[in-house]
């Protein structure tokens, strides 16, 4: 059954099918929400905001028109708005910017020193992405981790395709400039050695 068939059935009263529709996009939305929240050290809220996204989507499912956007693009838009409003809420309140959160878990088979290097590297990249303005960050996450095309990203961000290109171009440039100093450090040299093996 295609997405639009499922949506049609759900609109006609077969609510239980929404569970199936969610299953198709859960991983993607969860990953997107996680990356967006992680930059503000709020990733522990990822599951809640993912639920919130799907709940909101169900509530306004009757207003969803396939001609305007695909269901997945529409979902990403809701997810992004949900995350942004949550971030705004916390920015105005008192947000403990503690590092605690979830410590990146390295796969079991990786040796400890490699795990340390890996987590170091993850930390660097995370910081570089954190420092991007929100639109650049969203565009980069949607492009690099969700592999969406320009048009989809443009729909989600409410921008033109050419501004999405320029957002991505600026985001990549800025990430590279931020990571550059690390390229000459021992950590990076070790990583390079690891990678070439």
């Amino acid at each position, binding site marked *: 059954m295609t997405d639009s068939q499922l949506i049609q059935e759900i*609109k*006609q*009263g*077969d*609510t*239980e099918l*929404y*569970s199936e529709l*969610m*299953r198709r996009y*859960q*991983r993607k939305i*969860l*990953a997107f929400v*996680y*990356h967006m929240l*992680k930059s503000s050290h709020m990733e522990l809220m*990822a*599951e809640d905001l*993912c*639920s919130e996204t*799907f*709940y909101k989507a*169900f509530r306004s499912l009757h207003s969803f028109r396939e001609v305007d956007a695909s269901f997945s693009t529409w979902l990403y838009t809701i997810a992004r708005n949900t995350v942004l409003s949550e971030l705004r809420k916390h920015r105005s309140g008192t947000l403990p910017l503690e590092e605690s959160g*979830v410590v*990146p*878990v390295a796969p079991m088979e990786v040796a400890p020193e490699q795990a340390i290097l*890996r987590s170091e*590297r*993850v930390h*660097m*990249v*995370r910081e570089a*992405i954190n420092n991007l303005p929100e639109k650049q960050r969203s565009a*980069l996450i949607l*492009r*690099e*981790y969700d592999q969406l095309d*320009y048009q989809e990203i443009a729909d989600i961000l409410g921008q033109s395709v050419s501004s999405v290109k320029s957002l*991505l*171009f600026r985001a*990549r*440039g800025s*990430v*590279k400039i931020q*990571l*550059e100093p690390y*390229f000459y450090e021992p950590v*990076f040299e070790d990583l*390079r050695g690891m*990678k070439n093996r």
Partner: protein
Amino acid sequence: MTCDEAQELMETVWDLPDNDLRRQRLIAHVQTCSSCAAEYEMWVESQNMVHVLEHEIPDMDAEQINRNVMDRIYRDFPWLVEETSKSRAVSRVFRKRLTLMIAGFLALFVCSFVYFAATGNQPKPVPEAVTTGIIPTGVADTAQTLNTKDDYNIPKTNSGIIDPFVVDMSPTQPEYWMILSLLGIGFAMFFLKKLNRVRR
């Protein structure tokens, strides 16, 4: 390719497919120019590094999220619980019957159409004599030339009063069955739509 061009391309090639000409030209330049090669390597490294985050998502219980959302929906919209079970039970049976009905009428339509095409053609009315307003010339010595056929055939002009439209049809004619089956299909479709709307 000049170094300036290469520098410019480095900023933009990342979304291009591997076999894109610009990308290939850049790689060709990088292989011959050591200063661009260093810069290009940094770009590649930074791109690769961005991807380390791709798999940094802790395992979360997607099914749990799914159940939470469904529970919340049923809690906030209690009438949907009943509607869901009803729509599942009722619609399957009704739809099956309506589909059968449409199929039956369709078959009737096809049969009557075939019958109509094969035998139902009635003789076409003989076209009436064209009215030209010219009276055939009489021949003087034959008295019987002007006969009754020579009276004017005046076409009926629109007098403002429209004759009632009368369809000459009886159940023995294929047209009757064709129209009946079309009506049947129309009715079934209308009912199906109505059923869908009611369940909302």
